């Protein structure tokens, strides 16, 4: 286990295990990252090398690196587990990023509720000579959108942690108006490994699709964070999680911004970006949540869209009104007390929200709902007729 483990790795152990931080010239590291095919692990999956090159080109030596450790996704725990276990790997990645893009300042933006992770990062920063005077920890307020990159930048700049209108994007004008690289902490940790071992090491993992962290939850025996090669299948992941407590019917991939899929259909599916994409799926921030066969998909979906509606930054009309209307209608369906047109309405609304917010919050919610309407089509139809064929157990989708 390179990215997680029991306890917090000290600087001495970290150095002993991995050796010193390699002194790659900026261009070489960015080229390595481009060849590695590494995609951002925060959720959006943007190619890392390309992002760094964009910031480096605009930098003139005055960029800022914002290491994003605000894990707002209720079903994800991998970023806080990583920071708690391997803080020096994250710091290595941030230092490499600062060197590669030409940044003086490094900000570690860490969710205020991730106490263990914050403490480990704080302690690790004290241990490091090589980052002294350049690093700041900023506590990110709780909330689903706090970790969105423009929200993070806005908060660091003294505003509230709500997304702002883009452009300007952070890579053009971010923290204090300077070009800013916002990069998820796990991505930075992976960069620190690739810098030491080269792009081939990363590519060769997992049928040439890399390696990383996922959070497994739901009806498995051992929920928690797993380090996997992305060639691993859904079945492999369930196996490592100790198998199922009860039969599983569906899996939520990618978290609340992700989508539902049928467990049996996708059992042999490798969790690497291309095979997922070919089925309209994505791993996003790495959430894999199994829904019990006896749980109701409509009810589970209702809880998620209600949560997402509650987490709207309340800035854009389509998100404020659209998501709350969707949440209300879905809840009426879930409780089998729908209005006559509720199902038709949510079908229509789910097709209208994409691209209509300053950030992708409405897009994420609409995508999740569309996947539910497809996978649980029969259940939704039943609920519109005030019936439900599942034994209605309260689904334990964690709502923070």
């Amino acid at each position, binding site marked *: 286990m390179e990215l997680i483990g029991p306890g917090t790795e000290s600087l001495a152990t970290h150095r002993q295990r991995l050796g010193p931080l390699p002194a790659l010239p900026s261009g070489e590291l960015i080229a390595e990252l481009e060849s590695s095919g590494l995609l951002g692990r925060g959720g959006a999956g943007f190619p890392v090398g390309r992002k760094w090159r964009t910031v480096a080109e605009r930098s003139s030596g005055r960029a800022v690196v914002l290491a994003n450790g605000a894990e707002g996704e209720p079903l994800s725990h991998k970023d806080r587990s990583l920071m708690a276990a391997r803080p020096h790997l994250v710091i290595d990645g941030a230092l490499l990023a600062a060197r590669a893009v030409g940044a003086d300042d490094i900000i570690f933006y860490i969710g205020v509720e991730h106490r263990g992770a914050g403490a480990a990062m704080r302690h690790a920063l004290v241990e490091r000579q090589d980052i002294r005077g350049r690093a700041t920890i900023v506590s990110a307020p709780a909330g689903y959108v706090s970790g969105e990159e423009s929200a993070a930048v806005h908060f660091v700049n003294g505003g509230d942690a709500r997304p702002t209108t883009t452009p300007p994007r952070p890579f053009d004008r971010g923290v204090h108006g300077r070009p800013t690289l916002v990069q998820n902490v796990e991505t930075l940790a992976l960069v620190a490994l690739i810098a030491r071992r080269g792009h081939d090491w990363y590519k060769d993992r997992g049928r040439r699709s890399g390696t990383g962290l996922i959070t497994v939850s739901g009806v498995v025996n051992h929920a928690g964070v797993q380090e996997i090669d992305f060639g691993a299948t859904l079945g492999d992941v369930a196996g490592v999680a100790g198998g199922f407590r009860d039969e599983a019917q569906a899996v939520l991939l990618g978290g609340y911004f992700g989508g539902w899929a049928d467990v049996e259909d996708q059992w042999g599916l490798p969790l690497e970006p291309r095979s997922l994409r070919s089925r309209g799926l994505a791993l996003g921030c790495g959430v894999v949540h199994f829904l019990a066969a006896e749980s109701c998909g409509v009810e589970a979906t209702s809880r998620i869209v209600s949560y997402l509606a509650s987490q709207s930054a309340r800035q854009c009309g389509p998100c404020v009104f*659209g998501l709350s*209307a969707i949440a209300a209608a879905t809840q009426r369906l879930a409780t089998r007390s729908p209005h006559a047109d509720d199902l038709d309405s949510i079908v229509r609304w789910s097709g209208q929200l994409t691209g209509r917010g300053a950030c992708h919050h409405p897009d994420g919610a609409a995508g999740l709902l569309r996947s539910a309407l497809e996978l649980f089509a029969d259940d939704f139809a039943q609920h519109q007729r005030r019936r439900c064929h599942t034994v209605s157990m309260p689904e334990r989708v964690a709502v923070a």
Partner: protein
Amino acid sequence: MGEIIEIERIRCDGHGICAELLPELITLDDWGYPIVKRGPVPDHLAELSRRAVDDCPVLALRLGSVTAVTRKR
């Protein structure tokens, strides 16, 4: 290469004047917020599009180039 109507979503208050001026390209959702038809503004609607941009009471509309938008996902 044509122009495309962009909306600053945080600014938009759903006045709906744009949809009145330009029903060919802009419809309103159930709460009065604009839904813009995909694709560039056709030539014969260019003048009306400019008016929609100018007449928005909160200045939430603008005409952007097609390339700037494809970048946004």
